[in-house]
């Protein structure tokens, strides 16, 4: 068949170059039994597929596909799968959040940890408390004052943003 054979007017108006290119791509895709990526060609390949599926049913292929899809759907809805999905949806986010908090806490404690460069901002030395004169009030005993001082130091730390 000659490549430059003229277009037959019975087949409609002469095709544009663009139509020729699209028709060739569709013809090649049908030959290769592949699905074109272009939406319009994909649509036309679907029309060709409708004709083929209607005229040439393949019961064996259809059965294999149906069994595979059915198995997948049932497996996805099985109780074990549902438990896995529940774990993924409910537990995983909390576990992830807890991990993030732990890591952040670790980083935070590093920055607050007393080091030679970063000395503790509040003295925990209780000598001054213990050496203070005792009063009459029951809560003025050295141990009570020590407790008060520790509580106060802890509260200060909390108010500065530490969570320890």
């Amino acid at each position, binding site marked *: *068949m*000659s*490549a430059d*054979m003229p*277009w*037959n007017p*019975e*087949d*409609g108006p002469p*095709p544009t170059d663009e*139509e*020729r290119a*699209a*028709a*060739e791509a*569709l*013809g090649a895709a*049908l*030959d290769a039994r592949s*699905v074109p990526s272009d*939406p319009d060609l*994909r*649509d*036309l*390949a*679907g*029309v*060709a*597929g*409708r*004709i*083929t*599926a*209607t*005229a*040439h*049913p*393949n*019961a064996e292929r*259809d*059965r294999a*596909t*149906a*069994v595979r*899809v*059915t198995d*997948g*759907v*049932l497996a996805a*809805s*099985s109780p074990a799968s549902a438990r896995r999905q529940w774990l993924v949806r409910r537990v995983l986010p909390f576990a992830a959040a807890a991990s993030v908090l732990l890591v952040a806490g670790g980083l935070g404690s590093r920055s607050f940890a007393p080091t030679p460069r970063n000395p503790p901002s509040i003295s925990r030395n209780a000598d001054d408390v213990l050496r203070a004169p005792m009063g009459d009030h029951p809560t003025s005993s050295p141990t009570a004052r020590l407790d008060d001082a520790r509580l106060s130091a802890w509260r200060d730390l909390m108010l500065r943003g530490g969570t320890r």
Partner: protein
Amino acid sequence: MVLNAPAAEEKALVEAAQAGDAAALRMLLERFSQPLYGAVILPRIGIAADAEDILRETLLRAMDRLGTFQWGGAGIFPWLRQIAIHQVIDHVRRVQRRTRLEERVERQAADVMPLHHAGAEDLLIDQQERALALKTMGAAMDVLNERYRQAVTLRLLEERPREECASTMGVTVGNFDVILHRALAALRKAYGVR
């Protein structure tokens, strides 16, 4: 109403599945998924990957709504088929630009009830669905001009190579591609209203 044995068996399976019996559900889906795929969905979609997705959606939707199904004389297949057809229409609407008129006519075509009854042999279901698909295809082919119909017949019905099709029609392969391209575009339009 007295049911024959296969219909009674199908009804019992449906009721067990509705009551939460996983094995009964599996038997029902395994039995009907093949005619749904091969005779209802694929002949209306044409692309295997899309047809698989639609079958998956159909089965999931059927499982979700199984509790709402009420037993009728035709059994569960028409109900499943109706879900599948609506999934097909939704899919087509997503990927194509269809007019409201075309959609309405398609929905009317989808509402045609199958002739088979509850407990029918799979083969009977398959044959009746395929007869419907063939009728639709024949009606769509009838609106094509003779040359376009010849191109579709040679390439898709007789599955001949492009070169042979071109030679038979007395055109180049490039021109044959154009004729087939135009024929499929005309068929798409014809299918749209059937």
